[in-house]
């Protein structure tokens, strides 16, 4: 079976726009769980939302780093989006982490610079479960008072690693959690209280 030859969105334009709109909603309201339009097929190991995000966001100008568990999706990614696969996490505009427990430390990715913080990486982490009650308490732009987000499947040190990144603002990475067809975002502006 050739994993590259899989169809993308049923309606390439509107589904990609729908996924983008959904992500915009999730990014502007950190912790909010949003359902994205699902592609017709996904590479092995990919959740629908992970694949939808890549179809909506990637193109030839965005090198994508794939973790070991996401590597079978490399052919599909190139076929559908034309995005080059980056060998190093530090050289990628987007990163896909399918094995969330073995995710590299956040400082392995590109944090941008103080002059161009927007040149940083966006990390898509596929997780075992997402819930809007329990777990972390989030504060910051886009959140009226506080939001809750429960993410299952991350390593013990992940939250501490993320809190350490806050000191480097405006440098840092934006994280999108994907689970099934749903996503929640943790942009660098959000203050995470474990």
């Amino acid at each position, binding site marked *: 079976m050739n994993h590259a*030859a899989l169809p*993308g969105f049923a309606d390439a334009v509107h589904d990609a726009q729908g996924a983008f709109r959904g992500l915009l909603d999730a990014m502007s309201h950190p912790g909010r769980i949003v359902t994205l339009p699902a592609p017709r097929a996904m590479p092995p190991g990919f959740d629908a939302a992970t694949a939808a995000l890549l179809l909506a966001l990637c193109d030839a100008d965005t090198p994508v780093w794939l973790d070991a568990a996401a590597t079978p999706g490399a052919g599909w990614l190139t076929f559908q989006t034309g995005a080059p696969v980056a060998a190093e996490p530090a050289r990628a505009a987007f990163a896909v982490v399918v094995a969330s427990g073995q995710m590299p430390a956040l400082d392995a990715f590109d944090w941008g610079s103080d002059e161009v913080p927007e040149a940083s990486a966006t990390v898509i982490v596929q997780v075992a479960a997402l819930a809007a009650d329990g777990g972390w308490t989030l504060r910051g732009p886009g959140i009226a008072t506080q939001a809750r987000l429960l993410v299952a499947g991350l390593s013990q040190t992940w939250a501490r690693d993320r809190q350490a990144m806050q000191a480097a603002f405006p440098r840092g990475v934006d994280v999108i959690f994907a689970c099934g067809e749903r996503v929640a975002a943790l942009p660098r502006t959000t203050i995470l209280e474990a």
Partner: protein
Amino acid sequence: MTDAAADRRRRLAALARADVGLLEESLDRLDPAPRYDVLKPAETGLVMVRGRAGGTGGQFNLGEMTVTRCVIRNDSGTVGVGYVAGRDRRKAELVAVFDALLQDPAHADRLERDVICPSERRREERRTQMLSRAAATRVDFFTVVRGG
């Protein structure tokens, strides 16, 4: 390039230049009708056409042309691609369907005869016609060599 790849390239060129009516007719004649799944729906974009002056000169951009492409997979799992000049989305899909069929030895010979050959023949006829029209207006310049 392997022979198979060269052959596929030649067939794709013939399919891309074929009349869309010929492709539709040939598809209708196929029994059973090929079943396929569209992996990448036909999309239109621009391709930069490059040239090289005099065959040895530096490469330059001649200009952009409109190209429509499509990728399909038929029910035996073969992937076919279609690239055609212009914006004919249906033609790009038909070319992709025939590209997939032509990779199957069971269909290749018959389709080569019914689709590829007529298309190549028509192109050759058109070329000869154009050359003969141009040849009729040909003027030979020569310089008289003096003091030779």
